């Protein structure tokens, strides 16, 4: 199953593996500084911040409401969900749909993002593919199925070669994601070279910025809160507390 162990020329290590690591790292650092130069202050809308905090509070009420007395929970739920005066029922925000094509600020942001992140990745990936093609670079330590072969072994047309042996292009991509912690070490937290974090941000839709339609968010939060029941976590707290002596370790030194 594992196939014969290949012995690679050590100059591959010297002239391919290490340079790729180097290049990826340098490009990442450059990207960080370029992003900082092109970065402009995002104007935060007061209404948006306020709404996002309200939604957060409602979510916390759903999750941790069981630590509050029943009446307090009911009071807050009523504040949010009351059919006439409840916050989620009463408050409608005017929504101007932001078309990404026409809204200038979003357009420039998108363009800048593409320029600094995607473009270098494509360029360098392509160059590496062209410059370092036709040979196997390294072996990943875990076995892979044959389906990965066309993806990871571009330019190597060997039918019987184990899918664990990969080409330099895949080594490059491994580096792009792997060097993330190195960037944190050198550039400090919050650095712009951190690509996977950018992708994560796009997926979770950051807690500070509102999803484009607050009304929809309100409606879904209303539904979620409506079905929550209050099960008081402190119902039997005394019994639970008293089943054993208190642990005073560390109180008296």
């Amino acid at each position, binding site marked *: 199953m594992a196939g014969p162990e290949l012995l690679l020329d050590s100059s591959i290590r010297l002239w391919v593996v290490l340079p790729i690591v180097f290049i990826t790292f340098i490009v990442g650092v450059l990207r960080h500084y370029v992003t900082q130069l092109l970065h402009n202050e995002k104007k*935060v*809308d*007061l209404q948006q*911040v*306020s709404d996002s*905090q*309200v939604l*957060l*509070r409602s979510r*916390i*009420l759903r999750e*941790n*409401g069981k*630590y*509050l*007395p029943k009446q*307090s929970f009911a009071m807050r739920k009523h504040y949010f969900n009351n059919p006439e005066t409840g916050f989620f029922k009463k408050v409608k925000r005017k929504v101007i749909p932001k078309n990404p094509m026409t809204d200038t600020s979003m357009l420039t942001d998108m363009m800048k993002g593409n320029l600094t992140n995607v473009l270098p990745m494509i360029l360098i990936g392509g160059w590496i593919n062209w410059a370092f093609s036709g040979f196997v670079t390294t072996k990943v330590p875990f076995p892979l199925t044959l389906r990965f072969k066309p993806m990871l072994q571009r330019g190597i047309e060997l039918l019987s070669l184990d899918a664990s042996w990969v080409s330099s292009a895949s080594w490059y991509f491994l580096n792009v994601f792997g060097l993330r912690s190195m960037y944190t070490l050198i550039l400090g937290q919050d650095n712009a070279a951190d690509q996977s974090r950018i992708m994560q941000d796009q997926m979770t839709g950051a807690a500070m910025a509102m999803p484009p339609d607050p009304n929809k968010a309100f409606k879904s939060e209303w539904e979620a809160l409506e079905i929550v029941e209050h099960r008081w976590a*402190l119902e039997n*707290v*005394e019994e*639970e*507390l*008293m089943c054993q*002596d*208190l*642990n*005073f370790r*560390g*109180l*008296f030194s």
Partner: protein
Amino acid sequence: ILSIPELFLLYRFTNYMRDKLRKWREENYRNSEQIVDVGEELINEHASKLGDDIWIIYEQVMIAALDCSRDDLAWSCLQELKRQFPDSHRVKRLAGMRLEALERYEDANKLYDSILQDDPTNTAARKRKISILRAQGKSSEAIRELNEYLEQFVGDQEAWHELSELYINEHDYAKAAFCLEELMMTNPHNHLYCEQYAEVKYTQGGLENLELARKYFAQALKLNNRNMRALFGLYMSASHIAASPKVSAKVKKDNVKYAAWATSQISRAYQMAGRGKKENKCSVKAVEEMLESMQITMS
């Protein structure tokens, strides 16, 4: 000129002090005199070794200097920061804080208003304005402003805590309880909020509130076994309920049991505290007498 080992020790010392300052900054310590001592030395002697950290240290030392009435130090820190960050709102806020320390509240207010005109979402300036009201003793206005602030920024926990303190000072315990509930909701594992909430409920009085107080004292103990205040609170609330004439026999029995358990734990604590000390027997006896005198007569 320092030799190599001396240089090495100096480097280690600077790093050690820098880490200490960072810890105090991140965990919101208010040991201002210590910060001024350490920070002043670091800034005056070892500024070059601090690199970019120096700016945040300037901020930290400046605030500590204001706390200790060291206006000279605060002024020099402010000048350095102003020179480096001429248009910064953050530095403006520090300038405002210095004016507050000098009790020039009108000027401070003007400064904060100018920040807010430029950036209406700046929470720091708004909170400083509320602190000014509090410093001037205008509690009702402070409460009103804080309520307005919280309507827009429901998630600001520092503000909720400040508001609960203001309400307690005004003896408006119901509203203070509401604020503490917000804090308990967002920090369910913080035993101190549970304990404060229980104390407010105990102060409000009445059977229902005493029961809630007892429950939340117990919760605080559950979260942190070593919270002695909560232990005493548990004892007091349970004894109060047991002594009340309006409770059923079962409730009375339960509460007597809780109070007895609390007593045993308190004695245990004092015995452990006095271990190996000559005064042990006396203090344990003193605790027992105290508990007996606190015991509300049960009819």
